[in-house]
């Protein structure tokens, strides 16, 4: 994936800002990468290079750490992140069926982002809400007891929200 010139500048500046004031002890490597991801939503190659230079280690080591841990993303996430819990309880209560329902509705596979970058679909390890199984986490919100029809309902409510938002924005623009 290629970054635009503007995206590159933002990525480099954000990373430098995070690195400023941080000691170059390697123990801070993972916390720094977490902060970069929190700000940017993913860790682009330019950010890895900046981080590597700061800690005085080869960039490939940073890449190695990032690809080892499940949490780090190498590509930008969708505006809404849908995470399907794959814990035991969710699995036994049909998480696979839920996963297929999302894949069918969003027309993407797990690990992908929709073309308009509105939704990305992921599987996550147990989120610890086993009693509400099956569980789907949308952005930070935990949704329990999901069924395929509830997937349709959730998507519909997002579409409605989006329409309302667009209408509100349209109103603002007209006002100007």
């Amino acid at each position, binding site marked *: 994936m290629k970054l635009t010139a503007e995206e590159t500048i933002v990525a480099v500046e954000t990373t430098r800002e995070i690195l400023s004031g941080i000691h170059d002890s390697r*123990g801070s490597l993972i916390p720094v990468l977490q902060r970069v991801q929190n700000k940017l939503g993913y860790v682009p190659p330019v950010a890895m290079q900046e981080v590597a230079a700061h800690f005085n280690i080869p960039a490939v080591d940073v890449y190695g750490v990032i690809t080892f841990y499940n949490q780090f993303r190498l590509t930008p996430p969708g505006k809404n992140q849908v995470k399907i819990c794959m814990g*035991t309880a969710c699995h*036994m209560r*049909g998480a696979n*069926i839920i996963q*297929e329902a999302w894949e069918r509705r969003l027309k993407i596979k797990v690990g992908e982002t929709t073309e308009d970058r509105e939704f990305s679909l992921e599987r996550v390890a*147990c989120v*610890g809400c086993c*009693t509400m199984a099956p569980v789907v986490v949308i952005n930070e919100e935990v949704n329990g007891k999901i069924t*395929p029809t509830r997937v349709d309902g959730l998507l519909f409510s997002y579409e409605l929200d989006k329409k309302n938002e667009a209408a509100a924005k349209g109103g603002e623009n007209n006002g100007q």
Partner: protein
Amino acid sequence: MASNTQPAVVYAALKEQAVQNRDKLFEKPLIMIGAATCGRAAGALKLVEEIKNELNRLQLEANVVEVGCMGHCYAEPIMVIYNEGFPPMAYGNVNEGVGARIVRDYLTDGDPGYEFALVALEPNDFFPTFSDFPRGVHENKIVLDQCGFIDPQNIEHYIATGGYSALVKVLEADPGEIIETVKASGLRGRGGAGFPTGLKWETCRNAGGSPKYLICNADEGDPGAFMDRTILESTPHSLLEGMTIAGRAVGSEKGYIYIRAEYPLAVERITQAVQQAREKGLLGENILGTDFSFNIEIFQGSGAFVCGEETALLASMEGRAGIPTHKPPFPADAGLWGKPTVINNVKSFSYVPHIMNNGADWFKSIGTEKNPGTAIFALAGKIENTGLVEVPMSTTLNELIFEVGGGIAGGKQFKAVQIGGPSGGCMPESALETPIDFDSLTEAGAMMGSGGMVVLDEDDCMVEIARYFLDFTQKESCGKCTFCRLGTKHMLDILERITKGQGRPEDIDLLMELAARVKEGSLCNLGKTAPNPVLSTIRHFRDEYDAHINEGRCPSLMCKDLIAYYILPDKCERSCDACVGSCPVEAIFSNEDRIKVIDQEKCVKCDSCKVACPPQYAAVVKLSPPSEVAAREQGEGVK
């Protein structure tokens, strides 16, 4: 430095103030709402908002507090109301409408809404309490005692109920005495392995090298386990107090809490708790005016299951990939940055303040001689009363599942209980009399693990559950040991083949042989225990494997490739279109007799039609093997 100030004097002042502030809460009616992650998933935050709106609308004065989780997850969201004239009442399954109604009726008309009440929290003459139910009789809450009853965001609630008094005690005692007490209590590490905690502390204390580090392992990665999360979200200070005591005992001034990134609320709560403890002088430099200093930092994991293994956890904290290393040297001798390090689980630390306050003999009086104390289990799966329970060690599985947990949900038949997550095993009905403790469970082919317990019923396929766990460990293998990296992959391929109906007669022997090799050839416990789910299901449920391999049939009707959906023509109501509307792929049509039929070519087996079909008809069924459908259609003359 005010070294002449007695810590007890400083603490007494803190406590007096805390009690005063807490008591102010009770001057008005007090409404507590369980808002840990599980409660939030059930809509607790909306409930809080609705209750505040309702109070506002009615111009009523009351305090609304968000608390942690009481462990009764099946009844979330839970609300507790303290109001004068009645014992405090707990209400379950409170949605916004019910919540507003209870508040309205109770606070304006004095009607406590018994029809919505779960239990009363204090003994009284007219409503049952927890101890009137089997669960309350079996439970003995030590660590979970305060969970759901105090505000985790307010340190004064913890102090007001006697929190941090154990710390005061040990500040005046000799560190050696603390270790002796922990050793005498027989406390075993609750992370799963059951290593004596006191011994670990002593090794670290006696090890050369400084500084010494203390790490709390809160990387609760086992799917199906959420005990640590609940403690972190509900009583974070009990962990901090336990860690500070441990720091004093082993001579460490620096502690870390390694916490999973998947627990954002727990991270928030514990970070806030550390901040508040510092402000009160219970953490940081010169704790309570003594010359003992102890600091705690939060380190967030990055989503790697193997980091629950202590050497991998250390590698991750040192900024490397979480790959385990050889033991010895054990972390107690050479851990973080090569310095002596004590690594304990959240629960292990949380027991410590209680042991210090009540003494080693008290702790030993609970449970059995070799396994003293309580066991904390997360009950999930097909059980009636899901949630978090704390029972004395030696309680049997039978008591835990059928009395504490209320048996199997929906009147189904019990099949197995999976204990210990991906490292544990499935225990069949014949093993239900096994007492719960570290040694008995290991003997029975499962393991205590960190305490996740998933109950399975007749609808759960044992081959599929074995495949699920192996899929998990195979993905989470760090790749260091060949047997773990390739052996688990090979085993997974075989299991996938079996669940797709392509199994071969020799597959079971091959699985057993591979399992033995993977166990022998792996360095850490991830690989050593990865074959357990497969071995235990083969041992107890061999007939299910045989049905998959020899007949292409899934007896539990779960494996997708081996089932088909079918509408029973004599049960279909004909004029009802519920299934047609629910089908996401338009696979259901009406035939000439207006009976609904599923086009097997189009069907994606999403289960929607089975859910949609009204229960009074229950016309949609699953058949296995899929060839059954054609046979039935012919027999019943469906066109």
